[in-house]
């Protein structure tokens, strides 16, 4: 076990993957000498050379489109999109090519590509640097979508994503890059399935389902609630496509109440699918409607407003209160 910040853990996971498979190549803007604007690829070009850590021209569609070709040639590209808001120029290549090629060719062409996207707000950035576009990708058949919330998962999940024969959109909660945690660098790829949610804190009154940057927030809320005698069960979803409904259902079976939280707009966000499905699966077990909190249906605001925009522990607790009031 080593103590590492999330960003460093992903860096170490990338190194691990590159060491164990020479076909793994990294592609992106400023990922070489600079090591990426968040330094997640720091040192890797120096270690593995310019052929395996490729600074590309400034063009996201170009990055993903050429990575498709590299994958067809037998490589295992790991693309970095510098910020969430810059995934959109590559949207066509992602949804029409990356997601569909395996199915189009009946499995003849594999697409073992990982697309790393630092996402979410909370770092006081300018426009387009704080988006939470996960629902777009989760709604797209053919992609897998996951997100880590802590250093151990960062290390393990990035390796699993790269090892997957399918394309994986790998969301990294940028505002948690500097949060430290214990990492077992020797953890085997099988130590925890990529597509399994995790109960981070067990509880009995209300289940809080969340992921990525808000897991820490939910844990904070759980602590406060505990002081008030309310027992929250916090679930880190970890995987958004597929979603681990079995774990959710099991938890709601215990608590009877569910609050889903994410930074993305609530309207048609991942929480909508969870609320829809859990409302169906647990129709006779839910004691209150599934409540959702998250981003408003407005563009991500300027930095001075992001504290108001982002769900915090208070908003989670308010939803808990509303749930318990029914």
């Amino acid at each position, binding site marked *: 076990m080593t103590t590492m910040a999330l960003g460093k853990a992903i860096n170490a996971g990338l190194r691990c993957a590159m060491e164990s498979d020479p076909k793994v190549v990294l592609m992106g803007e400023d990922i070489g000498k600079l090591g990426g604007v968040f330094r997640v690829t720091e040192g890797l070009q120096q270690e593995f050379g310019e052929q395996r850590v490729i600074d590309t*021209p400034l063009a996201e569609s170009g990055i993903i489109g*050429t990575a498709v*070709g590299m994958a*067809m*040639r037998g490589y295992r590209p790991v693309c970095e999109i510098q910020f969430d808001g810059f995934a959109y120029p590559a949207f066509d290549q992602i949804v029409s090519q990356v997601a569909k090629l395996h199915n*189009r060719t009946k499995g003849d062409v594999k697409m073992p590509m990982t697309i790393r996207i630092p996402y979410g707000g909370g770092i006081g950035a300018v426009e387009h640097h704080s988006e939470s576009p996960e629902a777009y990708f989760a709604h797209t058949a053919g992609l897998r979508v996951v997100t880590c919330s802590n250093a151990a998962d960062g290390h393990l999940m990035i390796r699993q994503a790269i090892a997957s024969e399918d394309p994986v959109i790998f969301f990294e909660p940028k505002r948690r890059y500097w949060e430290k945690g214990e990492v077992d660098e020797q953890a085997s790829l099988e130590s925890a399935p990529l597509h399994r949610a995790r109960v981070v804190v067990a509880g009995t009154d209300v289940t809080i389902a969340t992921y990525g940057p808000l897991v820490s927030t939910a844990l904070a809320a759980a602590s406060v609630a505990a002081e008030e005698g309310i027992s929250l069960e916090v679930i880190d979803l970890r995987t958004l496509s*597929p979603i681990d409904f079995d774990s959710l259902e099991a938890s709601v079976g215990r608590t009877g109440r569910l609050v889903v939280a994410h930074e993305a707009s609530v309207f048609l966000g991942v929480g909508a699918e969870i609320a829809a499905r859990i409302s169906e699966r647990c129709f006779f077990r839910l004691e209150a409607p599934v409540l959702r909190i998250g981003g408003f249906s407005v563009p991500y605001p300027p930095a001075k407003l992001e504290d108001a925009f982002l769900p915090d522990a208070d908003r989670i607790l308010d939803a808990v209160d509303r749930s318990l009031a029914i």
Partner: protein
Amino acid sequence: MTTVMARPDVPANPVPTPGQVDAQGLTPDQDLVQLIGPDGRRTSGSPFAALVADIGPEELRSIYRDLVVVRRIDAEATALQRQGQLGLWAPLLGQEAAQVGSARALGADDFVFASYREHGVAYCRGVDPTMMMRFWRGSTQSGWNPYEFGMTTPAIVVGSQALHATGYAMGIQHDGASSAAVAYFGDGATSQGDLSEAFGFAATFLAPVVFFCQNNQWAISEPVHLQSHLAIAKRGEGFGIPSIRVDGNDVLAVCAVTRHALARAYSGQGPTLIEAVTFRMGPHTTSDDPSRYRAPAEEEEWKAKDPLARVRALLEAEGLIDAAYLEQVTTSADETARSLRSGCIGTVEPLPMSLFDQVYAEPHPLIEEERASYAAYLERLEDQSS
């Protein structure tokens, strides 16, 4: 705070506009690489002639046979569409030389990234025409295994495949291999950002990729000048990609320039852009009606430049044609047509439950859940109707 200045009078243009310069230079017959004259004689003046000097009588006859067979595949497929056997077809009529000429230059380990019209290329890569039908019939989204033939199945999103070719070429380069990727696309595709990004990546990394544009003058109803006032070949130069404009209806010239481009790729000199000037003699697809947007005169003009007639004239001029050979050619075409027709009609259609197959390479619970619930639904439906 400063405000803006008054506008001064501006003297005559101190810099030339490339549009002006090129408009002069680019009357079709001037810069086109051409190796078979309209009279059917091989020309030797071009520096490219040496590149196809090895193509002798036998190969010429086999090229002509390919051209005829490919045209026949096209005609048969069009007929099958009219008869409801295919959902759609994108005819290559008029573009046979551009496709056969370039495809015959390729090595077995080169990899073609096609658009949706490259039936002639596919034929030369060894794809059974029956396989080609499957996609257009609506039985599959592919038709063959790309790795088996070194050629992708149809790419429908215009321009998307150019980036794939470039990335594949980067992979070739990383492997230290000496082969090339070839991206086929149309004149319309050059307007797409993806094409330009592909040019950019290829130029930056000196990737061994050949960009092969069939400028067939039209993108559905849009004439090529809506995409570019200049020759398409000019487009590559601004990215540092050497570019060649070739008579796309001259099968030898096309073969020669493709060999040149491939040689550059094999030897680490990077990408080349080829503009093959040709004409889509038929509709965009079987759903299209060109009479709505173009004049019969244009079609007549290009009929006179028919790529098959040119080779036939050459064969005749060189005394390479006789009744037995022509019969062979006809038989080849007839057999191919017969086989593709029966293959097409006999297609085994996919079963409903195959909807859930190969969405992912690894197990996926949502797919399994949907598969099971759909199977249960189909059973209920069956129960009801029985």
